[in-house]
């Protein structure tokens, strides 16, 4: 299996605060991390490699510092890290990002066909969940979003079976390879790098690709290729009010009152019962 994992470097949003005046992210002093969903995508790729053999290639589009997350990927077991970094890529929205990543993957298809592209379900900063599907569309691959489990890969018949999250439950579907998967956090638990791999990753180089290497159309890259423009960013006001149940004196009563109100809501009651059944 030839697997490509798309990794995005994101600010650790657990630490990010929003400037109340300008409504922009305060990024200063915030550590960068690999998008948590993408660490799961990488782990899934490594598990596939352990089971079926083949290669795992990690790619990321970002500034030169993004090299760090690719090095980490190599420490964990990726065979190669490719950084797409070029002034021309800067300011990309989801359209331009998917285009750039898709062009890079096309380059990787040359020596050997790609079987799987693994992405996170979404990036914790941009949060659009569009890049994975965008790549699939451009490459003409099948797409499986919100994947919570990879059930089976049939190499001979070239097809994959996955369990994916849908509204109110799960769905098991099968489709042909090559495919793009976007993964949920519960798909796999990222491993810890072994010491020899970690040392290897510190000694090895990261491959650097620019707009020319991927034969990108300058009009479709970066800011130029991004029709999205941000009109305004704001934090939604916190929801105020709502009923308060004082549990200090009669906790039983408070819980009952609370449940009565919740169960009066049909949708809630329905979901609750569904869960109960399972």
């Amino acid at each position, binding site marked *: 299996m030839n697997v490509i994992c798309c990794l995005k470097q994101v600010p650790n949003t657990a630490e990010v605060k929003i400037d109340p005046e300008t409504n922009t992210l305060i990024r200063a002093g915030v550590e960068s991390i690999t998008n948590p969903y993408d660490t799961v995508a990488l782990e899934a790729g490594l598990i596939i490699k352990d089971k079926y053999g083949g290669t795992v290639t990690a790619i990321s589009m970002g500034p030169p510092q993004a090299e760090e997350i690719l090095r980490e990927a190599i420490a964990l077991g990726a065979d190669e890290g490719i950084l797409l970094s070029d002034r021309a890529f800067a300011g990309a929205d989801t359209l331009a990002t998917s285009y750039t990543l898709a062009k890079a993957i096309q380059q990787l298809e040359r020596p050997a066909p790609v079987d799987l592209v693994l992405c996170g379900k979404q990036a914790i900063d941009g949060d659009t969940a569009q890049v994975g599907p965008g790549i699939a569309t451009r490459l003409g691959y099948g797409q499986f979003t919100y994947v919570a489990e990879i059930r089976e890969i049939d190499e001979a018949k070239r097809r994959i079976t996955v369990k994916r999250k849908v509204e109110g439950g799960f769905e098991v579907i099968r489709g042909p390879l090559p495919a793009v998967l976007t993964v949920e956090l519960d798909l796999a638990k990222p491993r810890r790098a072994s*010491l020899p791999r970690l040392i290897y990753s*510190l000694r090895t180089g990261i491959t650097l690709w620019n707009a020319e290497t991927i034969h990108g159309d300058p009009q479709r890259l970066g800011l130029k290729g991004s029709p999205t423009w941000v009109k305004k960013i704001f934090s939604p006001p916190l929801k105020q009010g709502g009923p308060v149940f004082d549990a200090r004196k009669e906790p039983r009563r408070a819980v009952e009152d609370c449940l009565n109100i919740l169960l009066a809501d049909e949708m809630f009651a329905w979901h609750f019962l569904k869960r109960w059944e399972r």
Partner: protein
Amino acid sequence: MREQFDVAIVGAGPAGISAAHVLGGRGIKTIVFERGEYPGAKNISGGVLYGHDLARILPDFREKGCPIERNIVESRLWYLSNDGGYSVAFRDRAFCDRLFLNAFTVGRARFDRWFAEQTKEKGILVVCSTVVTDLLRDARGQVIGVMTDRPEGDVKARVVLLADGINSALAAKTGFRPEPNPHDVALAVKDVIELPEELINERFNVETGQGVTTEIIGEITEGMDGVAVIYTNRNSLSVCIGANLSDFVKSRVKPYEMLERLKEHPMVAPLIRGGQSKEYMAHWVAEGGYDSIPGLSGNGYLIAGDSGMLFNALHREGSNMAMTSGRFAAEAIVEAFDKGDFSSNGLAGYLERLDGSYIMEDLKKYRGFGKFRLEHHELFTTLPRLHSFAAREMLTVDGVSKKEKQRIIWKAIRKEISTGKMIRLFRHGWGSIK
């Protein structure tokens, strides 16, 4: 298969990284292990470093982008009661030109990272997020490598340098350094308070780039043997207070509450007003001095920096001793390679260098200082109160004659401290630092 290194260093603090610089420069294959996500991630320090010791390792540290916050031009000493206190300050033009960067503040998280980064070009491997859990030994007990908490986590090394700081579980595991006695460590808490650069310049009466250190003792440590400091960074102040661990155990004072009370002190509050707390941290300080220093070398290993209790509590010099002891350790290791002898004999150059340097001289000179403080708690209770009372009395204009005031002051002093005790205090105090 375990990879064989020449040297494995535990800890990417000033001691470990200084050694790595020297070893890398001599082409010795070295690996450094750091438990933090990056060097400095686990470090706090009031943040004063010393140019002299750093320059011996990286002469062009400024050109290489050392993240300097402010060059210290003035040192203040405060002796405080709960309501006020004395201030002595010394400033000299020399610290701006001839002695530029004699002392300067850094953020340790940034400095340690930068310092480690500089070893890369010398071929040093710095492996982070990795805890050294134990040492590998051969049948004769010679240290021959380290074990880490990673899968396949052992590496072999001819020499292991323990530069793992004061708070390392490794000391107990190896038995090289007994668990420090509560008398020999202090617990310090620190708050970094953000303020605009210009406001700090104004409040401390300095130009841009210049800084002030303030060392504080007195009633602020609530009767415990301790000290507080305020250091100026570019756009923040480090406010830090600590006390001897044995005193904390006895008094049950909560360190964070003590820090909060310090921040409300009339001498401190105006300096930090309007600032925002950015980080809050706690750390141990190796205070035991000369008599708490463990055996610093053995077959296949050396100990440097805080891990070896090399800290001068009176002058809050620790980072410089860490850097220089790290350098000495590396130089001794180079000699051991020349001789091909990694036993404590082959590594003897380390102790020789330490003994011949300011490090052991200073630590010997102040060896009684910790004991003196612990035996004279009045330094942190009655004395600052009486001192303040005396000054306040003399400065109050209320129709009472100065002679009468002096009488009142002497009476108050004698009521609380006998003359004999006073004489003992001075004698012991002088004896502990002379």
